[in-house]
């Protein structure tokens, strides 16, 4: 599936959300937000937290949050980075699903014709 074949409203709303959290006004830097979104390149204890948010959010504990707050990070910065970590992992899933769909349509289309 080419980009323009994805329903334009989903694509527009998806980009509106991801661009806002990554590049819009915030308390954390765009570099920190991108790293949280990618779940890569962050220092401890933040990396433990974002990794849990991405892969086992139901196991996040009070201590995980407190450990990051003790490094001096504000709650607003933490709020932003947690949102980026959650949206980032969900985005990777979504993109995998859309790519698999595009591939199946491409082959199915060729087969059908």
């Amino acid at each position, binding site marked *: *599936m080419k980009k323009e074949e*994805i*329903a334009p*409203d*989903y694509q527009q*709303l*998806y980009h*509106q*959300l991801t661009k*806002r*959290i990554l590049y*819009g*006004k*915030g308390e954390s830097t765009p570099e920190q937000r991108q790293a949280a979104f990618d779940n890569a390149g962050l220092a401890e204890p933040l990396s433990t*937290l974002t990794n*849990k*948010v*991405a*892969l086992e*959010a*139901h196991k*996040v504990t*009070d201590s995980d*949050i407190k450990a990051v707050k003790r490094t001096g990070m504000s*709650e*607003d910065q*933490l*709020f*932003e980075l*947690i*949102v980026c*970590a*959650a*949206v980032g*992992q*969900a*985005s*990777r*899933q*979504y993109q*995998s*699903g*859309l790519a*698999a*769909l595009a*591939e*199946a*349509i491409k*082959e*199915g289309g060729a087969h059908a014709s």
Partner: protein
Amino acid sequence: MRLDILNSGYKFGKKVLFSIIKAISGYPLPDAAKLVFYRPDFYGTPAKQFTQRAMRGPSQWSVGDRELMAAFVSRVNECTFCIKAHSAVSANAYGDRAKVEQVLADVLTAPIAPALSATLLMLGKLTREQAISPDDIRNMMAAGVSATQIEDALAVCFAFNITNRLADTFGFSVPGDDAFEAGAKYLIKRGYA
């Protein structure tokens, strides 16, 4: 919730609004709603717009089907708040609580159409393994699911994989079943916008 700003960091007008909602509905505003009221320009507003499109926008899936997908994804993520919230909305939309419970207990034996069952299995795999392959999509198409339906289901999956993570990380408080029932009626009537 685990961040104080999400419990009490709201402007005066919003605090008044929360009190009014509690007085009218008889229940405190659920944490899921409070989250999207916190600095809404950062996350709440764009997230609600995507979710509204996925859950209530045009689709060959019914509202009950999409809410069932939301509950199912939440179950795979073990997110108690969202399982309860969206199984209640699905049950209300279908007018059939038993069906929702059967799907969450065992999708393979639940009395639902093969297309819906194949879709739930794909969403479960994507949520659990973080990725799917073109073969997974071909299996769905063989079960009669259209490309548009797959795209709609992937959007539901995206929205709830975000919400589940935030619910468990921020630590949404899980109220009683009566509060979820009231919340379900609100989401049926008003949607996510």
